[in-house]
């Protein structure tokens, strides 16, 4: 397996996980940027504990996710009652605080980053990453198709009506934020394992742009769009000719703006997802009838 293939598989999975972390709160009209700082926190936690304390990967994953949830706990309770703007700005500011700390604290390697984690073999790395991709996908799918998913729909359309119907919107918001932070932290740990280390430049504005583009292009209101958007967008920047590679960020930005203006629901909206689902079901029924 070449490095390109490894990175393609790794980053596709990591960015799908990140996009799913963002998807949950965005589905309820909550522009929560917590997954971004959680990703940075998770990555630094993994690198620090692996390099300095020699923790095994399974312990790192559990503790990093728990750490991200704990870090997001107080903001989650406070932000639950606020609207979209304050939530977005507060989480963006938290993202910058985490980055500033990472860039300036010597214990995290400052601007050079923190390297020296014992690298996992390609097979182990991919197995762990895709196992977690399936787990996260299952959790998000189950949430989508449960009482919480229906509550998210209600909050999305009208928060006040949802509250009047007995949905505890504040509690739901806290649950969403903490789940998103946990998933974001997991994406960060996997990111750190991919590079066997971490560096602050990986978590700048570009990460936000990248995550938002995947979510917006794929489809903000279904979990399936990110599965298609993440690999395509990653490959797209890699196969660009060298002369155009410097335009990568500009292309992403332009794509994001275009989608928000022209098709804010993304390439795969709920209607598309439902149509595909119906088609699959009828196909299976047809096959079952033939076999029967």
């Amino acid at each position: 397996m070449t490095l390109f293939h490894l990175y393609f598989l790794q980053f596709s999975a990591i960015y799908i996980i990140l996009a799913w972390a963002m998807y949950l709160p965005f589905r309820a009209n909550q522009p929560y940027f917590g997954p971004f700082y959680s990703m940075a926190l998770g990555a630094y936690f993994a690198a620090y504990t692996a390099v300095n304390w020699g923790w095994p990967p399974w312990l790192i994953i559990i503790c990093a996710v728990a750490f991200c949830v704990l870090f997001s706990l107080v903001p989650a309770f406070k932000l639950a009652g606020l609207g979209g703007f304050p939530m977005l700005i507060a989480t963006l500011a938290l993202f910058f605080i985490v980055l500033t700390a990472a860039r300036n604290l010597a214990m995290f390697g400052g601007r050079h980053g923190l390297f020296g984690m014992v690298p996992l073999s390609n097979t182990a790395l991919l197995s762990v990453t895709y196992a977690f991709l399936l787990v996260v996908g299952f959790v998000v799918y189950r949430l989508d198709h449960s009482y919480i998913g229906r509550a998210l729909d209600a909050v999305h359309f009208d928060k006040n009506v949802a509250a009047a119907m007995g949905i505890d919107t504040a509690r739901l918001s806290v649950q969403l934020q903490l789940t998103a932070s946990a998933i974001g932290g997991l994406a960060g740990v996997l990111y750190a394992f991919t590079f066997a280390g971490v560096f602050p430049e990986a978590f700048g504005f570009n990460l936000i742009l990248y995550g938002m583009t995947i979510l917006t292009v794929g489809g903000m209101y279904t979990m399936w769009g990110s599965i298609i958007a993440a690999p395509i967008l990653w490959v797209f920047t890699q196969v660009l000719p060298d002369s155009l590679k410097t335009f990568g960020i500009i292309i992403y930005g332009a794509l994001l703006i275009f989608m928000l203006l022209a098709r804010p629901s993304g390439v795969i909206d709920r209607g598309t997802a439902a149509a595909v689902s119906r088609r699959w079901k009828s196909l299976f029924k047809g096959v079952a009838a033939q076999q029967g």
Partner: protein
Amino acid sequence: MEVLIAQLIGGIKLGSLYAVVVIGFNLLILVTGVMHLGYPTLLVLSMYLTWVVLGATHNSLILGIAAAIVSGPLIGAVTAPLFLPLVKRRAHLEALVVSLAIGIICSDIMSHWFNLGLPIAFPQSLQLEGHSINFGLTVIRMGELVTLAVSILIVFLFLYFLNRTKQGRVLRAVAQDTEVARILGISVPKTAVFSFALTGLLGGISAILFAMSTGAASADLGDSLGMKCLAVLFLASIGNLKGGLICALGLGIVESLAMTYLPGDWTNAIAFSVIVLVLLFKPEGIFGEQH
């Protein structure tokens, strides 16, 4: 004591610059509902264009200043059509994400295609180097004093415009209630475009003042400037112009003092922490909504 006074003057100068930027932020929020996170980056883009014009005209100050003042509204008017459809369908969060994307794109352009990505330095003549006031052991550059004076003047002129002119009343009417303003015959889309251009003009003026004051700029200047202005915005309450002025001055002084005692990057963390603390514990801000 002399050092402290010099720092206070520096802080007030910095704060008055923030005040001009915050006015632009507030104006857009009040009139269009757009929280333009890319606005500070567009301001920095104006600084870069000024630098290009200065380089091309052998440091002609008049042309350099003209470039900043013209490029500001021009950039504002060019980017306005991207926001107007979103403003029309009241998609404020989408507009915020668009503004963020515009900021990142501009930042990327500056970090790749200007001066090989290195920070730019403005000619000393722009900072009125050679003209200074000696205050004991401390030297206060004339450029800093001019920046302070012009910033204060701009703030007062803007308040006069907003409160005493017909177009200012139109802006306030749209800010107060868009629907009623429309019923009264005010063209809301035109007012929105005008507010983008006016904000751009404020950005252009701020660009030249920042260039005079700091003498340098880098592609990521807009990020930290944006976060500081957001801190002021939330601390003072969004849309509260007078509160914004007071908080901007306060932040300038705190930052000026912090720069003496804290390493460079940590001063930014103060602004970020202010944002988080205010939003978490006093989300309505210190001054509340302005009526």
